[in-house]
């Protein structure tokens, strides 16, 4: 990234420490890639949760301590006794004749090691493993790096890489259940997208043929605490991710659209100032934002009265007209449609007439 852009982004963030990227946030970038507001906020490492709360539209992504506890204890259980359960499942799922030969936890050693150093350490260990120079089966918490919209970001190292015969597999441990061989399709999809981020980062580091597109998902089985593993082919997610990251509107061009000198520093700006600054970043709200983005309640508030706030299908069925008020004016014949609105107006008038002919008064 250009130093100038870097400077603009850090100015935007102010004195707050930068939020770190993780596979979830990178995967989310491909979820609503048309939204410039989120792209800029994420690139600047702004804490969207705090920002949303500060402007009076707090996100509702609170996490229950029960879910966190369960997630942690499940992960610990899977990794316990030198990854014993994991080895057994990998043998069964991947049909590999493996023996655990050694493992390395790449979590911080010294405490104040820089990200750069941690990343180098991870890279060396991974390379040593796939090149057969060091007998390692599991590499836990490697700190990876990925170019996102021209911006090099470090990924929160929530993964285990499993090495076998010169090839790495990403192992994703999740605490949602697999019941009778089925799991929630959207949760699996989210896990697949996140794994694809790691696969891509690993491939850029080690080469495509060193990292398998089959990732291993480990979840509790049925209603028990016993883990079970299943292979997931993330080739589709990789195609999309790769394409998105290359075509992702360059952060540079988005940053250039910002008025000079603006900042979203929560410590130094009032709610009104923050809102004014946010208003300069174009949002693209859709109802699914409520499940995926911390800014959703603000963006929904701004989108009130827009047909898009009702969902893409509704917008389409209202002829693609931008606002509800305009759609109703056209439907009632109270407004003269522009050339572009002609088709929509005819359809809306017809719908309104038919609705009016049968709806109770």
């Amino acid at each position: 990234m250009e130093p100038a852009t870097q400077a603009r982004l850090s100015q935007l963030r102010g004195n707050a420490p930068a939020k770190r990227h993780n596979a979830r946030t990178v995967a989310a970038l491909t979820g609503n890639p048309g939204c410039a507001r989120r792209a800029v906020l994420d690139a600047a490492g702004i804490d969207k949760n705090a920002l949303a709360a500060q402007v009076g539209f707090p996100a509702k992504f609170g996490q229950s301590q029960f879910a966190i506890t369960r997630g942690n204890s499940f992960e610990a259980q899977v990794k316990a006794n030198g990854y014993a359960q994991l080895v057994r499942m990998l043998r069964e799922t991947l049909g590999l004749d493996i023996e655990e030969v050694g493992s390395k936890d790449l979590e911080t050693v010294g405490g104040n090691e820089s990200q750069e150093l941690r990343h180098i350490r991870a890279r060396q260990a991974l390379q040593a493993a796939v090149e057969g120079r060091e007998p390692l089966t599991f590499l836990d918490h490697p700190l990876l790096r990925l170019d996102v919209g021209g911006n090099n970001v470090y990924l929160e190292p929530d993964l285990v890489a499993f090495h076998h015969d010169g090839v790495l597999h990403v192992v994703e441990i999740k605490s949602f259940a697999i019941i009778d061989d089925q799991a929630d399709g959207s949760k699996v999809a989210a896990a697949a997208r996140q794994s694809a981020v790691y696969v891509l980062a690993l491939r850029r580091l080690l080469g495509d043929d060193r990292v398998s597109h089959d990732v291993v998902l480990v979840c509790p089985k049925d209603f028990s605490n016993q883990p079970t593993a299943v292979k997931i082919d993330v080739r589709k997610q990789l195609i999309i991710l790769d394409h998105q990251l290359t075509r992702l509107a360059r952060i540079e061009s988005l940053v250039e659209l910002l008025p000079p000198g603006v900042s979203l520093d929560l410590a130094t700006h009032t709610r009104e100032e923050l809102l004014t600054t946010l208003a300069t970043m174009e949002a693209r709200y859709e109802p699914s934002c409520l499940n995926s983005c911390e800014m959703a309640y603000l963006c929904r508030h701004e989108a009130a009265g827009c047909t898009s706030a009702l969902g893409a299908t509704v917008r389409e069925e209202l002829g693609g007209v931008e606002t509800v008020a305009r759609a109703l004016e056209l439907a009632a014949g109270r407004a003269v449609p522009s050339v572009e609105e002609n088709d929509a107006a005819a359809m809306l008038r017809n719908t309104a007439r038919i609705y009016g002919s049968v709806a109770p008064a």
Partner: protein
Amino acid sequence: MSAISSYARALAVDGGRAFPIATRRHVHIAGEPLVLIPLTMAGEANAPLAAMVGTRRDDPALLIVPQPRNRDLRFAFADELAAVVLRYVEDRTRQGIETYGKNQDPRYLDAPQLLVPNPGGVGFVRLFGRSTRFRRTTGEYAVSPDVPLLGRWLSFLAERAEHPGSSALLPMTSALNLHWATGQSSLEDTNLAATLGWITSGPDAAREAEDPTVWPPAGPSTDPTFDNEILAPALRQWDEGRHERARALLDRDLRTQLEPTWRLMWQAIDLLRALPAGDSVDARWTEDRNEFTSYYMYVNSGGYPQPRRDQAVAAARRLQRLEREQTAFDATLALDDPLVMANYRVTGEAFAGTVVESEPDRKVPGDKGRRVLRPLLVVRSDDPLRLTVGTDVVSPGRRKQVAKILEIDGDRVTLQIEKGMTVAPTPAVGEEITYTSVFPEGMQSPKLPTAEDTPWTHGGPPQPYVASDDDAREVWE
């Protein structure tokens, strides 16, 4: 979703209240429905935390699991829930029995109806049924005999919920959204308090509904802040051995979480009851009664619990049946309700208008040379006419009288009555009439092989189900 419901959503945004998208009630609401609001523990696989349940609005029972991670306590909860559900099921059979059809098959006059707040509630019923129906009542992991029975009934109800038109297990949000369009997105419609807010008050009520401190979530997931600040300390009391104190706290706190939703459920029931029932509602409920009767008899004759997954033949058979039911449901809904029919008028699969010409006595040469009665009529309509010449159509008031479109000329449609001239008089000049090509035809499904004859293309005959100790053990590990 359709052009009509989207338009009604726009009206709702503008008018500040929900707008109707049905003039009739298309679900059956039983005289004595069993209302169930389940709550689960975050992070666990469908581990029950509490439930409010009952058939009377002033007398809900509150069942709680003082430590959801304790599997014995979960099954104690299952036992308590079983007492309520099984008594309810048993009571249905006391309303009497009739016989029907040429085989004089028996059919109970009533059937169970379980009402839950949202689709998540249906998911709870399905999974709780799954986690209890295979339990054993003897041996190492024995549970009370009612628990596996509860599992079968919950599984039965959850399976019925997949059938289009069944009212055996209804998520209240879906039932409301079938009849009203709110001014929010369908994603937000799954919040019961918000949907009801739009129907009974307006957008402010709907926004308020999103505040978990005002309207606690209608389950099965709980509010994370509640988990962290209220539930966690109470569970700690239990873990530290102060059981009575824990129960008292949980009883109080969970009641405050559940009671608001309980009131909403009954408010929704009142709203739905106030709508006049569609003509086909009773026939569909009769199907629910049929299914209830046969399953009741199957269970009482010691039948197996429902299998975990469908085998090949069962899967194909189920799909074909669901397809038949979906087609029939979509069509009868429109025939029962002009506001639903409006959807088809917008897309051009139906048209409404006035009869401008009618020839009830018209005769044409038939196949065998004789002249046959083929009444003719012309309907003038303002609707977009997209049906093509030669299409068969019926009218809501004359479902058995099939007409064929002979000609479309501008806004005039010429029709010839082909079948059922005697079931109703030919529409007369001046009559307002609607015709549609969407009607339930006698869809046939091919005969499939028996399970033992499953062909090699589909994996061959499956292993027959044998209950095993694994079934009983799985939950304890």
